[in-house]
């Protein structure tokens, strides 16, 4: 029998970006808020202190800040005919755990999506006709448009303290920014970071080709900054330990640097760590949640009653909890019916490495969000009908780090060890750069999430099963980007050039790291039979459950998801504050 704790107004599952945002805004509303975090507590000092955190082996290679598969994982297969197997060694994606979530170990790329991406199906149908959409492609509109979200993008950028350069201020094009972006109501709160040699070289080459480079919007502070919560960032020193690490310098935006100390001061806020939520408990009619059951640090089951349940865990875990709790009808890939688990999508990336014997790139000078970007081949710039795919990419270049284990780019054919490897390292370390394509990934009937029929976790719950594979549409997209990038790269006259893009027939491989941009599974939309959540991230079926995060994306955007995740959290919490709390009910 589970121990029962005192009832709270709000229980939040997960204390990363969205849990922190919801906690802050709902505490400001006067509610009694409890956050449950399955991992450890973490703070800049002592957990990320200099120099201990700059340990590539411990954190970069051995995933010190990531979830441990023995504690939490899922099974993966590529199509309905395969038997899914557990993801026992982290590879393709790296969910975090602990306070701050993945928001502590990210690089900090903080984009807004294009307006067209939020209404993708309508945009495609309107401009190119519904018939260009493949039969198995299940892309949808989000149910919310860019104009509605704009104030919330602005809010998140000011809270997170983003360094960047506007390209479209209230409809006016601004030189040096991204001319293809949707209108912004204000510029970024900080000017862009200074740029490294490769980033500037790329920008020069892009300009010569007639493209429009702009500095990557960065959650790495370009100077000292204080956000609207009074939280502070210090100027980034380009130490090159962003992704997979906590920032030692208060320079990378994270829940810790942007929200948590302000939230912890609130007398109506409490958080418990090592508290893993097993299930959302529903009332007998299934229309509301009564609270959550979690396992505490001592392994004891606890029932935590609450009036409002916010799922703010990582995308995969939000969907898993919904499946385990019976929130929304599970998706059936054969009939297309059901909503929970529907439209899992990923990111379609590729890149070209360029080696220059005579250029010293000083790769130890890097920042997670350093770099220039072009959007000349982004979603709103491509004729889908003419090119034969739906989607797009941003293309970018810039050094994130020059770490000695994982950032030793070498020409193909170099031996992997021994004297040949050593001499190649000597010859090429610091003499290469890369240009990457970061592309959209559409949703498909057979890419989805459900409960695994075989494997269970340590609590006896079925693991979640991911069924995912690359599809021709997205491969055509990335091959198109390969062509554009190689033209650009050739114009820079490298001594050696080598590309890595998925080609026709490519199968999803969970071993090499690709990106931790897993999206969908609890998608938002405007029809209850097509999405798990309404436009306010509220469960259609259980109205006092709101689900934050990239699980709401109906397909993946061409950009990194955090800017959109942050804006959606502010959008949803505004609806909760203004509309839901005065009269709790389904908002749509």
């Amino acid at each position, binding site marked *: 029998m589970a121990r029962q704790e005192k009832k709270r107004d709000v229980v939040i599952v997960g204390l990363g970006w969205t849990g922190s945002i919801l906690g802050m805004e709902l505490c400001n509303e006067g509610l009694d808020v409890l956050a449950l975090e399955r991992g450890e507590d973490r703070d800049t000092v002592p957990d990320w202190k200099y120099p201990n955190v700059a340990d590539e082996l411990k954190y970069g290679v051995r995933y010190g800040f990531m979830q441990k598969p023995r504690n939490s994982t899922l099974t993966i297969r590529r199509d309905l005919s395969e038997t899914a197997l557990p993801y026992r060694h982290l590879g393709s994606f790296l969910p975090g755990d602990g306070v701050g979530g993945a928001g502590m170990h990210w690089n900090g790329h903080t984009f807004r999506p294009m307006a067209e991406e939020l209404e993708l199906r309508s945009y495609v149908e309107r401009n190119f006709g519904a018939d260009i959409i493949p039969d198995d492609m299940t892309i949808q509109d989000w149910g919310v448009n860019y104009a509605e979200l704009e104030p919330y993008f602005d809010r998140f950028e000011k809270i997170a303290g983003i360094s960047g350069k506007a390209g479209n201020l209230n409809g006016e094009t601004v030189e040096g920014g991204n001319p293809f972006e949707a209108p912004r109501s204000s510029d970024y709160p900080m000017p862009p970071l200074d740029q490294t040699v490769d980033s500037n070289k790329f920008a020069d080459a892009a300009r010569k080709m007639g493209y429009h480079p702009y500095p990557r919007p960065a959650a790495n502070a370009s100077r000292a900054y204080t956000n609207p919560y009074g939280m502070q960032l210090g100027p980034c020193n380009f130490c090159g330990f962003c992704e997979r690490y906590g920032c030692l310098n208060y320079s990378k935006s994270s829940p810790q640097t942007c929200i948590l100390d302000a939230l*912890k001061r609130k007398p109506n806020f409490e958080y418990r760590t090592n508290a893993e939520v097993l299930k959302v408990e529903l009332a007998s009619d299934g229309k509301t949640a009564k609270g959550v059951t979690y396992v505490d640090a001592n392994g004891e089951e606890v029932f935590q009653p609450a009036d409002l349940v916010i799922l703010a865990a990582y995308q995969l875990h939000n969907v898993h909890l919904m499946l385990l709790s019976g929130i929304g009808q599970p998706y059936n890939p054969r009939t297309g019916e059901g909503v929970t688990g529907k439209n899992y999508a990923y990111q379609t990336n590729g890149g070209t490495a360029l080696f220059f014997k005579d250029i010293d790139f000083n790769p130890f000078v890097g920042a997670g969000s350093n770099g220039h970007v072009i959007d000349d081949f982004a979603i709103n710039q491509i004729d889908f009908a003419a090119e034969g795919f739906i989607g797009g990419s941003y293309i970018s270049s810039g050094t994130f780090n020059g770490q000695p284990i994982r950032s030793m780019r070498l020409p193909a054919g170099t031996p992997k060890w021994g004297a040949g490897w050593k001499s190649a390292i000597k010859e090429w370390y610091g003499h290469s750069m890369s240009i990457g394509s970061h592309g959209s990934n559409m949703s498909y009937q057979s890419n989805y999430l459900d409960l695994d029929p075989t494997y269970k976790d340590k609590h006896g719950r079925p693991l979640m099963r991911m069924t995912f594979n690359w599809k021709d549409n997205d491969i055509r997209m990335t091959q198109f980007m390969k062509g554009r990038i190689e033209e650009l790269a050739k114009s820079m006259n490298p001594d050696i050039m080598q590309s890595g893009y998925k080609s026709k027939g490519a199968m999803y491989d969970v071993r090499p790291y690709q990106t931790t941009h897993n999206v969908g599974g609890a998608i938002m939309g405007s029809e209850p039979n097509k999405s798990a959540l309404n436009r306010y991230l509220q469960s259609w079926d259980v109205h006092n459950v709101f689900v934050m995060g990239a699980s709401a994306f109906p397909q993946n955007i061409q950009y990194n998801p955090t800017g959109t995740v942050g804006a959606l959290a502010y959008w949803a919490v505004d609806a909760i504050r203004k509309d839901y709390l005065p009269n709790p009910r389904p908002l749509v």
Partner: protein
Amino acid sequence: MNKFAKLVAALLVLGIVVLALIIFVPASRTAPVSSLPANFKAAEGHGEYVMRLADCKACHTAEGGKPFAGGRAIESPFGTIWSTNITPDPKNGIGGYSLDDFRAALYDGIEPDGTHLYPAMPYENYRNLKEEDVRALYDYFMNEVAPVSEAAPETDLAFPFNQRWGIRLWNWLALGDAGHPDLYDDAVLNRGAYLIDGVGHCAACHSPRNTIFAQAGETAEDSDYLAGGVIGNWPAPSLYGKGSAPEKWSANDLAAYLSTGRNSHSAVAGEMTQVVGESLQYASDEDMHAMVTYLRHINGKTTGGPDQMTNLATDAGNDADNSIAAASSKRADLSGETVQLLASADPAMPLGARLYLDNCNACHFVNGKGAHGVFPALDGNALVVSDTAGGLIDVILHGARMPSTDKRPERLAMPGFGDRLSDEELAELATFVRQGWSNDASAVTADDVAELRAAGFAH
């Protein structure tokens, strides 16, 4: 018996009688400085506010202990003094105190049974309190604080300091009149002086001690007034005179430092962390303005009205160009010997400079200016250049953490480097920052470091 022997005997008897009187006759208690009606009632919340500004909680609460239950160790030159339980518990706290008993503790440092409190309790300063504030404070402790029935540890100093009757002699010499005179024709300055001298008891740390260990200087007329003191191994910088923070900082910077523990020059460390975290951040905007105005006034600076001071809650302080470009790579900024030495990145540079690049430069930069409100400047920093290097050494050894305040909630921390630097290395590094840029302070030795390392982390 001859006359001389008689005289000696008489003097001896007289001495014994005087001593007996000192020991056994209760000390007289100072009367209220003004009379208030018996039914006087302070405004709601005022008692707690006075408690905050008087910072009672910081000393009378042990690390992780119950509020006001005492048990915090106060290190003094004479040994460890344990703060007492001041909750309204009748047995272990002050629940049995009458108003007069309470005032006697605040004004005269005397417990109801006549026992003298050690002057670690700053009754030298609290005797400046207005009767209204005494009453408000009394009501607060009796009615709003939860009683804690736990005895605080007994203070047990070595002889002769365990002979508390001796404090009575000290009181005769050290204590002035009760109450605080209004010396100015300006209500803001009088309020500021009252808060600084009385409730805020700034002089308890920031004034030097005279030959009998009393606070030197009573008003801004005296040159010793707030001229800087030493607490353990830490300096409490001068607040008075050329080069002192109130003399060289803007009113906004001074207010930011006092209310948030950080500004564009510096950040609090050591004991001041608690003063800001437990006390000063709670000062009203008017009182903060009064304190700042007064501190600047005694340093010859005028200050505008409260409306002239930036509202820190909305002043993001984000306009200063303190990007890494401005701090480290703008060629125009690469002037000065220290900056050039660091920016040269010459492997042959002296050890102190090399250690600075390896350990400090990421936040404090080659120009030693840090970053606005986040990383304190080292160039010209009072803690760095103090004659008492202990505070600087302590921060490098053990790190420091800013307090969380309403306007600046982030507990920005510098990690300790004691596990990474030997005594010799730390001394080289400390000497480098004490003598880099415009700094010109004495060298630190490995022995200085070893002593503080052995003493451990005390706060």
